[in-house]
């Protein structure tokens, strides 16, 4: 992890990335606030509860957005004064395409488990995940697949008696 190869362009794009994250983090709060005020968040389930149950969450959302906005303002002024400010926390050598692919595979795996149980998705997606992770050796990949896939399923379901989600309840998968 050497930073010597960093060009100023990379530093600028990193600063922009920081800004985007900050902005997204601030926007999340009004989203919840609006949802709650419009009744979309499901608070209408219990009429007798009144609004006491909403008071504290609303205060927290306001604190969140207020502090976030001040922070965003500070980030933005720093950015416009010096767009290529060195960033101590940034990891310059992340490959954005690769990380998005890994995230997509992981999210896909987690969502598929909800619908199809543990075994089928892991058999389909784990090889892809191992490949994306950078496993190049076939033997190693197969061993890792067998241990992390069917191996863990067997260990938990049969060895430890903790049921993992299955496609058919009581079934093999």
């Amino acid at each position, binding site marked *: 992890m050497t930073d010597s190869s960093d060009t100023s362009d990379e530093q600028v794009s990193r600063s922009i990335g*920081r800004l985007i*994250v*900050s902005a997204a*983090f601030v926007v*999340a*709060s009004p989203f*919840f606030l609006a*949802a709650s005020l419009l009744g979309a*968040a*499901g*608070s209408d*389930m*219990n009429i007798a*509860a009144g609004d*006491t149950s909403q008071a*504290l*969450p609303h205060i*927290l*959302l306001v*604190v*969140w957005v207020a*502090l*976030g906005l*001040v*922070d965003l303002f*500070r980030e933005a002024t720093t950015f416009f004064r010096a767009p290529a400010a060195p*960033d101590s*926390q*940034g*990891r310059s*050598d*992340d*490959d954005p395409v*690769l*990380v998005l692919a*890994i995230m997509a595979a*992981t*999210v896909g795996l*987690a*969502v598929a*488990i*909800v619908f199809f149980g*543990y075994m089928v998705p892991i058999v389909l997606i*784990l090889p892809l*995940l*191992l490949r*994306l*992770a*950078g*496993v190049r050796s076939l033997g*190693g990949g197969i061993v*890792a697949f067998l241990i*992390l896939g069917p191996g*863990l399923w067997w260990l938990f379901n049969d060895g*430890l*008696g*903790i*049921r*993992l*989600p299955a496609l058919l309840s009581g079934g093999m998968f």
Partner: protein
Amino acid sequence: MVDLTFLADVWAPATVVAMIVGTALGIIIGALPGLGSVVGLSICLPFTFGMDTVPSLALLLGVYCGSVYGGSISAILINSPGTPQSAATVLDGYPMALQGLAGKALGWSTASSVAGGLISCIVLIVAAPQLAHFATRFGSIEVFALILMALTCIAAVSRGSMLKGLSMGSAGIFLSLIGTDPVTGAARFTFGIQFFTAGLDLISVVIGLFAVSEAFTRLAQDGKNESVFSGVRLMLPSLSEWKGRIGNLLRSSAIGCFIGALPGTGAATAAFISYATAKQLSPRRDNFGKGEPDGVIAAESSNNAVTGSAMIPTLALGIPGDVVTAIVLSAMVVHGITPGVRLMSEHLDVVNAIFAVLVIINILMLILAFPIVRLFGKLLAIPESYVMTGVIVFSLIGAITVRGNALDGVVAVAFGVFGYALRRGGYPLAPFVIGLVLGPQFEENLRRGLLLSDGDILSFPTHSWIALVLFLVTAGLILFGPLQTLISGRFARSETARLSREP
């Protein structure tokens, strides 16, 4: 003088095996990111039905104590706490490892864990009834004051930007309130989805935020960084290195002992409070967050001190302090022992056996730590692409098995993506976790306090002298901590970082 017949139970081969197996299993389960104390105990619970009373309690206590310590191994080696209890250990443990001091950091965490555990055993044996009765004086308003005090830790761990830390803290508390209102039972922020009425599971969120996002971060670099910690060996600190740190160890253990005795708080809370206290009081406070052994000592001694003292309300009053002690209690019930106020008089032999078992388990932890850390060192010698894929799969299984719900796996992964983005945005993760851990207790006690005082929050400090003291301390912490930093930050924006470190 003292009836020592219980020692026969403790030295029975079955008990000895149960202690060794339980402790080793606990450390390993704790160290695997994703699997924590609750999963470990759920795995062992069915086996205890066929065992005698003392061996089955030894197994469960071994898994419990071992897992609380084990979480620190992955906190230090892969920047992800194996359990939420070790979230505070990451703050200084991982920076130490990055400086090539992984073995040393593990040594500090091991020594502090064992010391904290043993200190809490002594407190449990000597003062359980007194402490349990003192703890009952903490009503909703007193606990609220305590939680408020703990929330000031958010400022203490906001590395980089105080503003980001505070907004992360409020976001954490907010997200912890999603689900069912603890007073009315109304559903909040569930968007009509039944799964959300159960709220977000703390363990799944912590797994995602730390372990999954760490896996994303490392895999994104496509094997460009060599694993630095392969073949790591545990190095215990020498006696001379303890010089000037004993006070911190004792204070943090005491905090852990007290928090553990309060039902419904827990090890993660204790670790953050001790960490923040140590950061205020340590002579090396400037170095906190950059790899300071004092930070590791504070976090690890206090979270392991909870393991012994969580048994205080359990044994003295029959009140389980948390999910873990509730499982231990249920194991007693299955073996025909009614836990409760009469436990100490009716089943003194079992209580004494528990005391002895807890002491032995803590010593076993010290012995077992060496081979298990070597084992993990060997595991990390495997190329990172395998290890990190394994971390993702274990995180998924861990999240899914906590409540037996596959949707918790999706939550973990979603927070993995969120955590990755926040790291890139320079946001500190610890304040968010503190908010999540303390949020529910904060709200519950506040709401109960308001019900008791007819909605008059201003009467809280005058409720009792305990409340008054706690509120005054909190006010002091805010005045001399975050407020000062914020004000000084406004006047000398470019020098915020330097000024905030001035005492």
